[in-house]
């Protein structure tokens, strides 16, 4: 059983109170992008054995979307964080690396500092 703490209402919600939303931090490729980029945006998803970032919605609660970091093999939950973040937060990265010291983020630190507004531009 998966129990995630909703960062918006602080409730430790059980899996059946939540709605899964698939992979987190997808970047949209819309009009003007190449066919390959658009196809990858629509269909290509990570399927790692290990650390994974996901979207969940607190459906039987406050109704907000949030992000969760967990291990797909051990089901260990590293933490949950606000959906208004372009990349996992430094606290989440630290929590993952505390358990898996050899794990490295697959996004570049430069974009990690990009504010959310510029991604919406």
């Amino acid at each position, binding site marked *: 059983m998966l129990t995630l703490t909703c960062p918006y*209402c602080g409730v430790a919600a059980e899996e059946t109170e939540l709605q899964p939303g698939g992979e987190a931090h997808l970047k949209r490729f819309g009009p003007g992008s190449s066919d390959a980029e658009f196809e990858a945006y629509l269909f290509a998803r990570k399927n790692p054995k290990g650390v994974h970032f996901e979207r969940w919605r607190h459906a039987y609660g*406050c109704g907000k979307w949030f992000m969760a970091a967990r291990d797909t093999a051990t089901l260990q939950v590293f933490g949950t964080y606000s959906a208004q973040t372009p990349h996992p937060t430094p606290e989440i990265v630290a929590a993952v690396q505390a358990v898996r010291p050899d794990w490295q983020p697959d996004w570049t630190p430069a974009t990690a500092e990009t504010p959310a507004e510029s991604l919406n531009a």
Partner: protein
Amino acid sequence: MAEALAKISQVQDWGMIQIRADLARAGDAIAGAAGVALPEQGRITTDGSRSLGWMSPDELLLILPRAETAEALAALQDALATEHALALDVSDMRAVFRIQGARALDVLMKLCPTDLAAMPEDGLRRTRAAQVACGIWREPGGYVLIGFRSVTDYLRGILTGAAAPGTQLSPR
């Protein structure tokens, strides 16, 4: 043995007003117009016949006697006139049940995937009861459960069934 775990009764004379607003900005105005203190995250505050429950980061639920609904709604809409906010009478949208009795918690434990025993005394927990969404808080002698009116019969059925005599969770 032949006694139900808890007494299930439906409440008909409550009014409810849904308030959606930026609580950090408009919290004081809402509390003033509602006549109840602003609840903290996941809590419900009560003052006399009125309660104000925290539903989500931008949503509150005012519970009050139905006769006072129109007046309170007007007061809230007046107080929130300058805000990007919504105050709406949702009395007819909801069904309210009282679960009263020493084993009221047993009834809810069978239906909700929630540790209600660990809920604070003034907590409000939104969760599900079997297949439908609900909200639960405490009152003297038991619990109050709110759900959507469209599933009233379903809620009454599962609550009555979960309270069937002789079905308590602790050993007999």
